[in-house]
């Protein structure tokens, strides 16, 4: 027979179970009304602006920028918060779950996408359709959902990686340092040749291919409807098989099967790997931390078989629950305006996302400085660059691809099996039926 204590215990547990089901409710949607929003009014209100690990290096720039905005709009105020790089996504998740996202925030496409899916980011295409023409098309695509016809952030700065190589290691392996690879197949041929020549004392390639590398090799990552992953075609198989061949002939760093991107970069700096991707601001790092490499540094355009380089971007999103949408929009547009982006590009070695900004002589003329050559090479690529990493590509998909390709490279499974498994898992994770 049930006692009063049994009933109380059972009731409490049932209550807790019901409460725990609350986690199944989606996060609250937008509070800002849909439709165009004008900023030609007297702006009033306080907003919170969040950046991603920028305070320590660029404090002066952001303080000046905020002061300038507030001086132009005395009724507005901006509370700047800078979050550390580690755990940025976790912080966003907590803020989003608490419906306390910053009014204006710095996001990369992969972070912006899930927030937009949850309806937490303002649709710029709906609220400010007239301003989108001012940004480069490729940059806008990074923050757009073609199916829904929405744009969930303003493009901010762009970057693209030139290829760095170690001229001394090329020479030691009997390769011509003035003739670096320009296509992926040339890279694989040189990797085999280097492996044959130096027998694992150092290696040409330091990391496994990422999804963007498949794109630059000419593999179609998503189908024409941009819904289903299809990167398991013949060309993708060929790429993985070339990696496997490079591994067998000691042209690919064996540790690359477990290394993260940072690890691959470190091996390049230490002289264990002869070639690496990078960005404009790596040159200063090489100069300070790897002087031997810096003295022998070769720079060339990115490897691509499609004629398009890969591009990375950062965006500025506005919360769809902001209490002061006019102020938030005005600040986001002020921050991503051509003038402010150019100022930022002069101090950070990144590239503006506004239309026509790359025609500025700063990005087209080599002034002979350390970083100038890299900047001009990278800016030249950006004109036709595209982001080969789909916005729906998640960390779990990335890990699965690396896992499968790692297995194929060491010969545990075939390239086709690895890619089939990666594609199946990616589609499953994306919620696309087989």
């Amino acid at each position, binding site marked *: 027979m049930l006692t009063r204590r049994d009933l109380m215990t059972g009731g409490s547990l049932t209550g807790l*179970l019901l409460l725990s089901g609350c986690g199944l409710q989606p996060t609250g949607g937008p509070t800002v009304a849909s439709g165009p929003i004008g900023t030609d009014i007297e702006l009033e209100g306080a907003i919170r602006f969040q950046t991603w690990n920028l305070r320590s290096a660029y404090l002066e720039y952001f303080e000046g920028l905020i002061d300038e905005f507030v001086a132009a709009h005395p009724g507005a105020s901006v509370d700047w918060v800078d979050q550390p790089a580690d755990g940025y996504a976790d912080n*966003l998740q907590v803020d989003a779950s608490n419906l306390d996202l910053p009014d204006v925030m710095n996001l990369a496409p992969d972070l912006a996408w*899930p927030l937009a899916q949850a309806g937490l980011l303002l649709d710029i295409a709906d609220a400010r359709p007239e301003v989108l023409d001012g940004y480069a098309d490729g940059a806008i695509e990074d923050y757009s959902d073609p199916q829904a016809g929405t744009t969930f952030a303003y493009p901010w700065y762009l970057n693209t990686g030139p290829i760095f190589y170690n001229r001394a290691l090329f020479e030691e392996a009997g390769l011509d340092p003035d003739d670096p690879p320009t296509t992926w197949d040339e890279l694989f041929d040189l990797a085999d040749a280097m492996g044959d020549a130096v027998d694992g004392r150092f290696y040409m390639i330091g990391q496994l291919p990422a999804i963007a590398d498949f794109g630059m090799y000419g593999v179609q990552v998503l189908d024409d409807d941009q819904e289903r992953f299809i990167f398991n075609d013949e060309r993708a198989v060929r790429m993985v098989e070339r990696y496997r061949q490079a591994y067998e002939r000691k042209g690919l760093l064996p540790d690359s099967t477990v290394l*993260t991107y940072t690890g691959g970069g470190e091996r390049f700096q230490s002289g264990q790997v002869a070639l690496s991707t990078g960005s404009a601001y790596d040159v200063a790092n090489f100069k300070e931390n790897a002087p031997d490499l810096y003295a022998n540094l070769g720079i060339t355009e990115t490897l691509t078989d499609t004629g398009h380089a890969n591009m990375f971007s950062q965006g500025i999103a506005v919360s769809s629950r902001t209490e002061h949408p006019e102020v938030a929009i005005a600040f986001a547009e002020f921050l991503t305006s051509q003038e402010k982006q150019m100022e930022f590009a002069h101090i950070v070695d990144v590239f503006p996302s506004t239309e026509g900004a790359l025609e500025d002589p700063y990005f087209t003329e080599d002034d002979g400085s350390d970083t100038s050559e890299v900047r001009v090479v990278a800016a030249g690529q950006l004109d036709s660059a595209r982001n080969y990493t789909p916005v729906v590509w998640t*960390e*779990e998909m990335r890990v699965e691809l690396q*896992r499968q390709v790692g*297995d194929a490279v060491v010969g545990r499974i075939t390239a086709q099996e690895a890619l089939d498994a990666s594609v199946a898992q990616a589609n499953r994770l994306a919620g696309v039926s087989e």
Partner: protein
Amino acid sequence: MSTATTLERPQAVETPQRRRKPAPVRTHAPLTPWLLMAPALLAAIVFVLFPFLNTIVLSFTDARPLLGGSFNGLQNYRDLLADPMFWIALRNCLIYVVGAVPPLVILPLLLAMLVRKAVPGIGAIRTAIYTPVIASVVVTGLIWTWLLDSRGLVNSMAGWLGIISSPIPFLTDEYLLLISSMIVTVWQGIAYYMVVYLAVLANVPQSLHEAAMMDGAGPVRRFLTVTLPAMRSTMLLIGIIASLAAFRIFSEIFVLSGGTGGPGGRSSSLVMLIRESGTGLSGRLGYSSAVSIVLFLLTLILMIVNLRMTYRKES
């Protein structure tokens, strides 16, 4: 009689208050225990019971961060059984239990026997042995990474001595990575359990050792017939604690593999699988909760088996 007079307490000094019994404390019997337990109970409900129940509920859903979810029955458990990574992670946890627990039970006992003797400088030696325990797993993991890397100290020394012609892939071979992680776990845990053994060893009556010596028992025989029986229950306890910890291994493998779980992720543990699938803005909360529940059940079974064995031996 004067003595009797001085000892006699005059009655006038005794006040009525002193004679009265102290008033009983009003305990409000049914509520008092609950009131005293309330802070701890509340913390346990909020931080242990609620998350546990929430994990059970989520394991039957397709929940994602921010997007919420709906019940999908046993789908996550079906996915789990069909996921090769789950079986690989489970295998690795079992290998870890088999490989790391016996050394963690036996080596600290031998070490405790060595360092319990009062010789000059023993305090410093004990402190030195204990140092890895207070160091962060991440820090020690990084140090071991530098040691075992293909260009690390161990490979460099072995190459310099001519023992090897190419680096031993400590961190790039799936099994060597697991073994390397176990070495770090044992190295770091050995001193902790040594302290437990030292405390118990101090309670073993010296008279037993003396009696055994009188009977002609040598050091080995005394260890087997006196020390080991006295240590049996402690060894079982350490075995349980170490096997539960080994089943939930994460930090060592994570740090040594640079967060990747080894080549093809084939050195991953179950906790790594939970972290990988359940974190991030696009994490699969339902699936990672299902793996968590399975891990919970497995550790529960392990604990029950251990306790039953202990009980049987004790009785």
